[in-house]
């Protein structure tokens, strides 16, 4: 019997999974857009994005647009691979039940 895969704990958190999925559908996104789409608080969102950044799944860029600070996030190649592997693992785990 094949061994069941383990789910990546960094991605498995609901908010982190939502963030990675959002970033997978776009080229880059502002902090404010991610906050609006997830309905999360600034503090929680910042903390979860930092975890994703530490894991190398997202890259962050801070810049000023018309004198206003903007924090832009984009998914890295490592993040894309990790999300694809996570989805694959989910499908395998649900294989018998789907």
């Amino acid at each position, binding site marked *: 019997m094949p061994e069941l895969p383990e789910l990546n704990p960094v991605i498995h958190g609901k908010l982190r999974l*939502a963030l990675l999925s959002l970033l997978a559908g776009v*080229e880059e996104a502002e902090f404010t*857009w991610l906050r609006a789409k997830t309905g999360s608080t600034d503090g929680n969102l910042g903390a979860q994005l930092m975890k994703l950044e530490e894991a190398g799944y997202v890259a962050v860029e801070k810049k000023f647009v018309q004198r206003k600070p903007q924090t832009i996030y984009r998914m890295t190649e490592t993040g894309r691979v990790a999300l694809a592997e996570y989805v694959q693992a989910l499908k395998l785990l649900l294989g*018998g039940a789907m």
Partner: protein
Amino acid sequence: MENTEQAELRDRLKLIESMMAEGRRKTESWGWSFLLWGVAYYVATAWATLGHSNFAWPVTMVAAGVLTAVMAARTSSGHPETTLGRAIGAVWSAMGVSLFIVLVCLGASGRYDAHVFMAIIGAMLGTAHATSAIMLRWKMQFACAAVWLAASVAACFGSETVVTVAFLSATFFGQILFGIYAMILDVRRRQRGAANA
């Protein structure tokens, strides 16, 4: 595996799908621009016919272009860009600029011919609609492409009356009606999204 765990894993899959769709939603909310340009064609046609003005088309088209740019900047503000969105935007922008330059040059050179004008407009709009339809796999937009190409063919063979009727019909079905349809779809999608949130 227990049912609660399975349900939780299924929830995760649904979350991934819904969030990815959220990112792509922006590409589908351009119905207003089709409606705007459809109305602009009618305004330009009416002005040119009733007012006998050579400025009717260039002025109306520039005004519609400026209005589109302003509204697009307002609606896109803060929204992230997708590759698909940029590709479709590029098709329409390139088509608009090419069409404007060619038609202005034709008018300025004095080689104005209603048949040629309408054939070019129909072919260019048909091509842009068809390209978008293929990218989005959207049958309704493909129907718009067919309408514009049919109008273009009619402009090549028909009388001046046929050209006018074909152009006005294609504008109504391929721009105005399609724009309203796309806007209704977008509103419904937003309502569904709000209900699922």
